[in-house]
């Protein structure tokens, strides 16, 4: 089996586990699942609504296995249930927008964090023991130990409330109409800046450290001495010889980190009322909208798995040895 196929199989298993977990959760909780699920809405919903909800949710007196088969069938049909707080909107409708914004925020912040971390970490390794090296990595680690939501509050307070330099929340201004206009895109960018910086700031420390430590090893390698002996220009030595090799181990850990960064991002969205999945999850929790909550959990998990797979593909593209090993063992 090739490397990527093997990884894909693993993510399929992980996705399956998440789906099963999602199915079991309400049914494993103490008490009658339907009562737990719809407790907060007993007054608003009539008996007919409740019955149809129960059905939509796959809660019946049928044996667990039959319910499970039912559940999988409706999942495959793209049916994730009906929102309680915004009854009777299907949760898929609600999630679609959130997913887009979350992916945007996530991609931008990981890119910023990874790029900055690579630059700072490489530089620290090249200037081993310099003042930069003794100050910057510990400093980024210190910021990295801030909880995301705390740094978010701090940044929000300073830049949006105190200095009023940037918007306080949401994904774009009320005064611009969505569309591919410069005004709209500009508004999206300014609204993105604070939450993306927050997430990048917290995550950058880990990249700095990882790149620095591998770079120190790479600088010691013969191929670097050879690159210099070849009289290549500095930027080529740094880029094609040092950085490309130093990034590899970090890319492997990128996959694990993505789940972590995404978790932090969810909290950051809450603070900035950024309309992504995190904010929706928060809203679902506070309104006890269990169907929405569960659908979000599934959506987030699947996004993270997909990103993980993308990272694996990137790794295979960057490291010929992985590809080679894969074809050899297939």
């Amino acid at each position, binding site marked *: 089996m090739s490397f990527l196929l093997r990884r894909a199989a693993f993510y399929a298993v992980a996705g399956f586990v998440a789906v099963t977990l999602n199915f079991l959760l309400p049914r494993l909780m103490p008490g009658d699942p339907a009562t737990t699920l719809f407790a907060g809405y007993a007054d608003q919903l009539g008996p007919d609504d409740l019955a149809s909800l129960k059905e939509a949710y796959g809660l019946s007196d049928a044996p667990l296995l039959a319910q499970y088969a039912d559940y999988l069938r409706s999942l495959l049909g793209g049916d994730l249930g009906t929102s309680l707080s915004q009854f009777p909107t299907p949760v898929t409708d609600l999630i679609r927008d959130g997913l887009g914004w979350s992916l945007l925020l996530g991609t931008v912040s990981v890119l910023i964090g990874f790029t900055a971390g690579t630059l700072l970490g490489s530089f620290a390794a090249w200037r081993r023991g310099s003042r930069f090296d003794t100050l910057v990595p510990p400093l980024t680690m210190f910021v990295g130990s801030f909880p995301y939501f705390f740094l978010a509050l701090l940044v929000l307070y300073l830049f949006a409330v105190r200095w009023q330099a940037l918007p306080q929340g949401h994904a774009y201004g009320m005064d611009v109409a969505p569309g591919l206009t410069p005004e709209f895109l500009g508004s999206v960018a300014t609204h993105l800046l604070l939450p993306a910086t927050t997430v990048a700031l917290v995550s950058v420390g880990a990249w700095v450290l990882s790149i620095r430590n591998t770079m120190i090893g790479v600088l010691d390698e013969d*191929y670097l001495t050879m690159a210099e002996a070849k009289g290549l220009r500095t930027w080529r030595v740094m880029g094609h*010889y040092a950085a490309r090799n130093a990034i590899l181990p970090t890319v492997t850990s990128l996959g694990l980190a993505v789940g972590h960064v995404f978790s932090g991002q969810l909290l950051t969205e809450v603070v900035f009322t950024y309309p992504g999945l995190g904010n929706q999850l928060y809203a679902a929790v506070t309104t006890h909208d269990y169907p929405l909550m569960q659908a979000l959990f599934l959506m987030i998990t699947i996004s993270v798995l997909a990103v993980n797979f993308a990272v694996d593909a990137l790794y295979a593209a960057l490291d010929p040895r992985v590809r080679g090993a894969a074809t050899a063992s297939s």
Partner: protein
Amino acid sequence: MAEPLTAGTTAPPTGLLSIENLTVDFHTPRGTARAVDGVSLGLFPGEILGLAGESGCGKSTLAMAVPRLLRDPAVITGGRVRLGDGDGDGVDLLGLSDEELRRVRWRDIAVVFQNAMNALNPVLRVEAQLVDVIRTHERTGRREARERAARLCGLVGIGADRLRAYPHELSGGMRQRIAIAIALALRPRLLIMDEPTTALDVVVQREIIAEVRRLQERLGFAVLFITHDISLLVEISDRIAIMYAGEVVELADARTILDDPAHPYTRGLLASFPTLHGDDTRLTGIPGAPPDLVDPPPGCRFAPRCPSAHDRCRAERPVRVTVGDRDVACHLYGPAEVTP
């Protein structure tokens, strides 16, 4: 062999490269280790000069000091490294700026490292590693550089299809051949080969050595060839320099070194290896260990291990002098105790 002596050969041959009184220090926490101590050595165009000595005697340090590839704790504290340019004095590599040095590297002096697995960049195709050095030093289009890369491959006996391979996809011997092809890419005048075959098995080792000889005869570059294996050296070199504890203790034609070694250390070294013809295989070796370079013994550095050491050896450092057709630094051959 006790005929009158001329003063030491500190004036090196006017040739391709002349290393004069070169000194390299390593600043370690324990103190300063002088890994290369006032070495003078010259290379003529097109010759193969072998450099031998026990591990840690400073062979690599000396060789890597020439293109200034040593790193941090190493500092060149004295001497000159002149690269001849056909006429006049040539240029002193130690006086060049980083940018001037970058231009000299590989164009004039190329290096083949001990283990090509480690010396080739694992994430770049072989072709890219050939093309980048060509295009950095010469104004060449990508197409033309690729064609040259293919020709270079042919030169070292490797099919051009292997250019698309990554280093890990090649065998050890092929990798070393590729390393040689890269080294020859710009037709350098000097090739530094630091134990280029130690990582290979004996058969491949022989093939590579034969290949180097063949290419050297054809292209006429000079080689500074480093190895532990003195029998190999005798086979390939025109002249051989023997190093001990940071100094060159003997320098002569390969035949002279083999047939008539003068320095007790050279004799010990030769005795440590089976002779080429395999008839006489006593492996006596040299008792004791090389000195600590941070705190070397006074007098001759080899004295503590030398079977012929006498009082003078322990007190006074011998200078290198020319005795007949060789240079040697040993009181057995040195000028009398009182010299005007």
